[in-house]
Each structure stands twice: as C-alpha cells, then as structure tokens.
C-alpha cells in the first residue's frame, strides 16, 4: 500500500469538478482511496482524517491543487495521479477548440451580446465580488453560492436596486426565466403562473406540481434563503413580486418560503395585496389571512393546486394515496415507533417538520423548528427525527445530496438497523442539476434496508416523495416504477407522503400536537418599487446567461437551448487575501 500526492501550484478548480473527478479516480484499478481538493486547511483536515496527508500535501497552499491517492502499488498510484490530471483538464462542455474562454464577466458579456443574467456558483467568499462585477456589467444576478456575508448581501441588493436590477440569492438554488431552468430546476410547461421563491426546493415542488396539474409557469424568481429575514427585509422578494405583478405573461403569483421575519412578512403581504392578480401564499407553517387577492395555502401541494385552479378554473385531480396506514402500522414490531426522515431538499424537510407535529408531536432535527427539538448530533437520530442532509454539516468536502447519494444511503441503512424505526421518509428531487438517475443508487439501498430489517423480524415501510415532471431528464415514470418495485411507497404529493408516515406513527402510538401556525397580518404601505427594467430586460424572453462557477450549470443550460457563455473563473488575486483586500480598498 502506498500514498502518493501531486501538487499543482495556483491551479484552481471548483469543488464539483474536483469531486466528480475524485469519484472517477477512486474506481481506477488498484486505487483504494483518492482525494482531489484545493489545499485549504479544511480540506487538509479531511485528507488527514482519511489518512491521505503527505508532507507535500501538508505544505500545500490554499490556491494549490492537491491530488493524492492511496493505491496497492506504486504503478497504480502513479497512473491514478496522471489520470486525475487528465480528468481535470478535460473540458467536455467547451464549445470546441475555437472558443476563447473569457476570464472576466466583462469580457464574457462582450462575447455574448444581449447577455442579461449572471448565474454565479463560485465559492462563497468570492461570490459577492463576482456579483458586483455582474451588476457593474448591467446583468441581473442569480447567486447560487452560499456562505456570502450578510452585509455583502445587503450591499449587493442595494446596488442592484439602484440600477433597476434583480439579485436572486445568495443561496438561491432554483429559478426559471421564460421556460429556462437555472440551477436546480425541473422541466415544466410554460404558462401563466409566476413564483416568488425564498426556498429552492419549495419552488421546485410548486412548479413541478403546477406542471402535473396541467398548468404552466411564466417565471420562478428566487430570492435566497435570507432575503425574508429582518436583516435584508425582503428586498428581492418585493422586487420579484412587483416584477411578476408587472409581467403581462403572469396571471397568478405564488409566494413560497419558510416563515419570514414578522415585519417582513407583514410588509410583503401588504405589497402582495390588491395587485389585480391573485397571490397564493405559502409561508410553510404560518397562518396568512385570505382576502384582498391573497390565497393562503398550508402546504406546497396546496399552493400549487390553488394556483392551478385560479388559472384553469378547475381543481387538479388529487393524487390520492392508495396505501393504508392502519394496515402498515399493524405489521410493525412493538419496538418500531418512530419516523425517520432523510431529506435532500431543505424546504421539504422543513415542511415535513411542520406537518408531522400534528400527527406525532415534537420532531427532532438538525434544522429544528424550535431549540428544544435540536439534535445533539446530526449523526444520531432520536425519537421522531427528520434530517436535512443538504445542511452545512453534511456538505464539507461533499456534493449536495441531490447529486451525491452516498451519505444518505449510509444513514438509511443505519436507520433500518435501528429497531425503533417505524417508517422511513425520503425525498427524490429530479430536474436539471440533480443526479442523472437517483433510483440507480437508491433502489438497491432501499432493498438492502428492508431486507436487513426483515432479517431482524421487522417490516420497514419506506415512503418516498418524488419531485419532478414527465419532462425532466431523469424520466419521472421510470424513477417511480423502480422505487415502487424496490418496495417503496411513492407519493407524488409531499403532504400525502408526510401524512401517510404521520398516520403510521400515530397508529403505532404517537400523539400529535395541535397546529399552531404563526398568524401574520398584512401591514405597511404596500408600495411596489419600480421594476420596469426587470420586466423589460429579464422577463421579456429566454435569458442569455453568463455562467460563473459550476460547469454543470452551463451543460444544463445548453441542453435547454439557452445561450450561455461560461467564464473561466479563477479566484481573484490567486486567492491571496492581502491583495483582494487591497483591491477592495482601492475600489471602495
């Protein structure tokens, strides 16, 4: 056994590219383990834990590329190192050898006349700088990156407002402009329902269900997860709402997000009221009054159904669950009492927490509704537990669980081995940006989980909600069939999946707590900002996108026929903080 490493000074690659290449290197003949990372302290810690820290790697700097492999022979190690380098320089999505890859947003804009939107997914500490460059170039911004400082978010949104532009994000996972899905997004029909989403998966669920209900989406504008907090005050939500109100192609607006700060929610509702267009509101778990054009919904599924009814005049067919909770519960062993939810989608996880309380009482989580239900460790379930596997603690050196299922599968098997687990609740999110075939990995895992439980004398129900449409690249029907064949109960409506799990656990002895949604009343002037520039320059047709960051977003945009030019992005000043600070000081 040998561990060998190679350092490439000042060679930056984004983490997704590195992790995808790392996955390929790990399965090379003779290779036991491999690490492809930038030489940051955090990454070196990860390598150390994996026994991959060589003296050479220890000395690497944060802007150095580190390639390290553990292999059975020197030969295998050497070949793997070489192969790793080849995998990294491969550029499958470059438009041929003749295309110059611009290094800055400004020169990318020159290469794509009419560019109107920057999709930014660079590491958080650099993201605000790129967003500023994009705003300077007159582009609207979708900031997929997270870990952006709050004051940067505020500054960016102030700057954008001054220029009539829209900033979606940071931490904006999903948006759709005139039929084009950006970031994680499903392929949905074009239509007249517009979405303002402060929650990425929430937007995916609503847009998917609108499509399944026979209606379509005009635009889905994201705001970023912190926009509705008091510090930002819903700047982007109000601008997005106003833009959809002004958009002639939008008839009904859906406003979806986790409960906002009370005064932000009040102002937002005031702004939404009396716009001449119905606004369906789902602040997951918050109670919104009806009237004045406001249509409160208590679940994502309901929000989509109301919106479809408002544009088509008829309620879409409910996809009723055929499973029988009482029967399922009757087959459980006496030890099986608790729900274990393992989510890849943050909004779905949140909605599950809110809905489950009504059936089973307090639910523990790494993203709890209240401090008293916080898990001591996200790694260990307790009583009823629902986990957001996309939360930061699971994402160190890892891809999002929508792309990389490994951690969730590991956890699923552990929950299956726990005699207290009564039912497992999972989500599968399809669409652009997600895993190309999630059931391929999940099906054997579910089968194994159920078999292992059965070997211990337990029957383990696995309930899966699938968010997606029949036009998504993953083939929704095939995914559902494969999961069903593996013994899972598949629900297309998340609230149904949660209800089923809740009823099983209730039948197994848990008691629910009364619903206590936080009431929100509209308050404030409700004056909408001037967003004519957003309407005219962003919503008037398919976007022309400058992609800065993850290559897979360029691929998915190109697959949708969207004009896109990617910036060959490198960290500013080679990542040297001293010079980044000096530049900021000079440009202040």
């Amino acid at each position: 056994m040998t561990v060998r490493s190679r350092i490439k000074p000042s060679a930056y690659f984004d983490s997704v590219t590195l992790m995808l290449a790392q996955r390929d290197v790990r399965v090379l003949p003779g290779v036991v383990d491999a690490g492809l990372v930038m030489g940051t302290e955090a990454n070196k810690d990860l390598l150390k834990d994996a026994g991959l820290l060589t003296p050479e790697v220890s000395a690497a700097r944060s802007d150095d590329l580190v390639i390290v492999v553990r292999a059975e022979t020197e030969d295998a190690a050497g070949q793997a190192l070489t192969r790793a380098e080849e995998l990294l320089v491969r550029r499958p999505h470059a438009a041929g050898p003749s295309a110059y890859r611009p290094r800055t947003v400004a020169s990318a804009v020159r290469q794509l006349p009419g560019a109107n939107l920057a999709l930014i997914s660079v590491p958080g500490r650099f993201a605000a700088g790129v967003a500023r460059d994009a705003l300077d170039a007159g582009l609207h911004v979708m900031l997929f990156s997270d870990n952006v400082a709050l004051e940067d978010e505020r500054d960016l949104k102030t700057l954008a407002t001054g220029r009539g532009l829209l900033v979606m994000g940071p931490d904006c996972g999903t948006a759709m402009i005139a039929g084009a899905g950006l970031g994680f997004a499903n392929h949905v029909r074009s239509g007249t329902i517009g979405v303002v989403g402060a929650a990425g998966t929430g937007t995916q669920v609503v847009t998917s269900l609108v499509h399944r209900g026979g209606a379509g989406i005009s635009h889905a504008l994201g705001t970023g997860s912190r926009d509705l907090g008091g510090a930002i005050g819903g700047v982007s939500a109000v601008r997005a709402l106003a833009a959809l109100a002004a958009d002639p192609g939008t008839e009904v607006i859906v406003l979806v997000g986790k409960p906002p700060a009370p005064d932000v929610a009040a102002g937002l509702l005031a702004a939404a009221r009396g716009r001449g267009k119905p606004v369906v509101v789902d602040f997951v778990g918050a109670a919104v009054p009806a009237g004045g054009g406001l249509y409160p919904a208590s679940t994502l599924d309901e929000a989509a159904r109301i919106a479809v009814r408002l544009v088509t005049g008829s309620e879409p067919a409910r996809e009723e669950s055929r499973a029988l909770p009482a029967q399922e519960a009757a087959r459980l062993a006496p030890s099986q009492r608790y729900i274990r939810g393992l989510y890849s989608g943050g909004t779905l996880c949140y909605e599950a927490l809110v809905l489950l309380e009504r059936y089973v009482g307090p639910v523990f989580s790494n993203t709890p509704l209240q401090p008293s239900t916080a898990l001591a460790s996200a790694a260990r379930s307790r009583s009823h537990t629902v986990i957001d596997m996309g939360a930061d603690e699971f994402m160190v050196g890892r891809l999002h669980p929508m792309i990389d299922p490994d951690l969730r599968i590991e956890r699923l098997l552990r929950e299956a081995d726990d005699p207290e687990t009564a039912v497992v609740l999972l989500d599968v999110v399809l669409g652009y940006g997600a895993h190309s075939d999630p059931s391929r990995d999940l099906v054997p895992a579910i089968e194994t989980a159920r078999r292992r439980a059965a070997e211990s004398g337990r029957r383990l129900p696995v309930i899966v909600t699938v968010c997606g449409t029949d036009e998504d690249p993953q083939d929704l029907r095939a995914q559902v069939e494969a999961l069903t064949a593996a013994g899972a109960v598949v629900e297309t409506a998340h609230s149904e999946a949660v209800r089923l799990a809740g009823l099983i656990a209730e039948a197994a002895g848990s008691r629910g707590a009364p619903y206590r949604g936080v009431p929100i009343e509209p308050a404030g002037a409700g004056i909408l900002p001037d967003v004519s520039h957003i309407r005219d320059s962003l919503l008037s047709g398919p976007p022309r996108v400058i992609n800065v960051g993850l290559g897979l977003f360029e691929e998915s945009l190109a697959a949708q026929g969207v004009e896109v030019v990617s910036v060959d992005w490198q960290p500013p000043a080679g990542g040297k903080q001293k010079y980044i600070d000096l530049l900021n000081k000079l440009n202040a």
Partner: protein
Amino acid sequence: MRVNIDEANREAVDRVLRSQPVLVGVAPAIEVIPRMQRNLILHAGPPIDWPRMSGPLRGAVIGGLIFEGLAPDEPAAVAMVEAGEVAFAPCHHHQTVGPMAGVTTASMAVYIVENRTFGNRAFSSLNEGYGKVLRYGAYGEDVLARLRWLRDVFGPLAHRALESLGGLDMKTMIAQQIQMGDEGHNRNRAGSAMFARVLAPQLARVAAGDNLAAALAYLAENDLAILNPVMAACKATMDAAAGVDGSTVVTCMARNGTDFGIRISGLHDAWFTAPAEVPVGLFFPGFTQDDANPDIGDSTITETAGIGAFAMAAAPAIVKFVGGSPQMALESTLEMYEITVTENPAFGIPQLDFRGTPTGIDLRKVIKTGITPRVNTGIAHRKPGIGQVGAGLVRPPIACFEQALEAFAERYTA
C-alpha cells in the same frame, strides 16, 4: 489622497489614444537626450549596478566604453567601471528606450520621435541588424565599425531624408504594420519594408554611390529597421500618459537582464522590480533553453503601448511562438483585453474585425485576474557577444504588480 481611479485611468488612456508620435530625425545622443553626458551609459530596464549586470549587458557596456574611446579594451573598460568612473542610468530616465541591452552612449546616433499632441520627445538607438551586435553584448571590431557607420553615414543621411519628408507619422506606420502581419515587436518585416520604401527616394536626393547603396542595403536587409522608431514612438506615447494622479495604468515595462521593472502612471517615477524570468521560446540551430539569458530590453514598451504580444492576433506568421495556430494568436490578444482599460481604434486588428488593440494595462486588473501581460521577445545568449539565440514569450513576474499595488494603496488610501 483620495482619487477616482477609473476617471484617472480614462485620462491616462485618453492621452495614449490622442498621442501622435512622429519620427522627425536622427542626432547624436549627446546633442538631444536630456542630461546626457560623455561618461554616462544608458541601459535597458530598471536601475542596476555593475555587479548585478548579466553577461549581455556587461558586454554591451564594455563595447560602449570602447566605442566612445573612453577605454581601449575590455580590461581597461572593466577597470574604469570598477573605479567608479562610469555613470549608469536606465534609458527610461532619459526619455529613451533601447532594445536588448539598450546601451546608448553619448556619440551614438539616435532617432528622435516627437509627440505632436503633447510636445514631449523620445529617443532610441539605430537598429544594428543581426548577428554579432552590441545590443546582445558583442563588441568586436566589426560591431564597432557598424556602430560608427550608423553614427557617421546612415544617421546623418536618415536625418536629412526624414527632414525633407517633414517627419514620418509613426502612428500611421504602426497602424499599417498591424494590417500587414506585424505585431511591432517580434515581427517588423512589413513595417521595415515600408520604412525603406518611404526613405529610399529621399535618401537618393541626399546621397550617392557607395553610401547610398550601403544605406539602401541596410534598410533592405534589416527586418528590424523600424523596431527602434516604433519603440521610441511607444515611449513618447506612454510618457504622455505617465504621472496622472490616481491612475493604475502601467506606463513602462522594461528588463535589464536581471530584473523586470514596471512603472505606474499614478506612482510617477517609482520602479517596481522582481527577478526577470527566462523567456520560453524557439531556438536557433545549436542553441537551447539553457543558453537563454533572463529577459532583457526596453522593447516591452511596445506591449505597454498595446502592440507587440498584445497585437499577436494580427501576426499569423509568427504564431509558432504561441503554440502554432492562428487561433492561439487570437486568444493571446483576447486575453489581453481582460487586463486593459481601453482599445486603440487607431490600431485595428483585421482578424478581430478591426477591433482596436488592447491598450492601457490596468494594475488592478492584472492583480485581480492573475493574468500578467504577455510579452513577445528576442532571447539573448547568457554570455556576452554571442548574440540572439532565439525568440519567444515571457511574462513579467506578478511580484512587480503586487508591490506596485501595495505602494498605490499606501499612497492613495492612507
């Protein structure tokens, strides 16, 4: 002192774009170069003292002293230098630029370029041609004889020819070169041919017989004849952009064979230096990368002014230097737009739909993108007197720019 950098940079590049360099004549250095002295040797690049000079520069210094009659031979010349009897200064401190070693002495003939817009002048030596030449550190009798001929015969003839022309507009000359496959640094074949064409009829009026034949042969055989006037034109242009308070535009890049140095408009006369890199390139038969001296010469004034490697897209004949394909030449130029303030509409590149050359290197953009300016260059042998061994590419060390940014921040944000 607080300033608007973008505004200052617009002012600096506006001066570049408005400059009108005209080649007006030839004269002995002592007569025209400000503060020139008999025992003063001008050299390429940032300041350097004798102990740190590389082989080619030392050779050129010795040759310069012998040429001036200050020393009879090498040992005497070295003794003079070591006795402190010789003064050194960068060409750039005297409105002058010189290729490779750049050694310019009192009696040498120099071109005079006048910036008609701003009234400033710049100077450069006369190109010696190929083979064993002073600029690569050779100082044999044939080298000195060639320098004397340039001083005594060609210089005066060229001066009268230029005078009777009323001066040669170098901006137009460069614009035409770029449309004819020159980038103005490593390739000057088209420009030199035009130079010969323009001068020939005038030379015929002021000379005859052997002198005329020799002058015409010099122009006919030397593809670099126009390089030195082009350099002086770039120098006259960039000097006009120097000293704009608050500007981060690079106004000078130069190498002395040991250090690479840059100057920034808003930082006036300060140099920011770091060890010069060894150019990577293609070598003449019998030479290899191991023979190459670290980067040397003031000819980087061309890139500073937005031609040379910055106009690589215009010069398909020399794309071997950038990897072999015209597409790579195109990308070399496209990359330089990432770090420049503006485009020079006077120098349209046919291959880019006559887009102007990338002009006015912005220090901030260099640091932010990590893209250092590209430089096309000849490569000198590391030993004096052997001459050119190849040609290729080099970039300034990023450390020059990092130091400059620190100094700039200190001056303007303190």
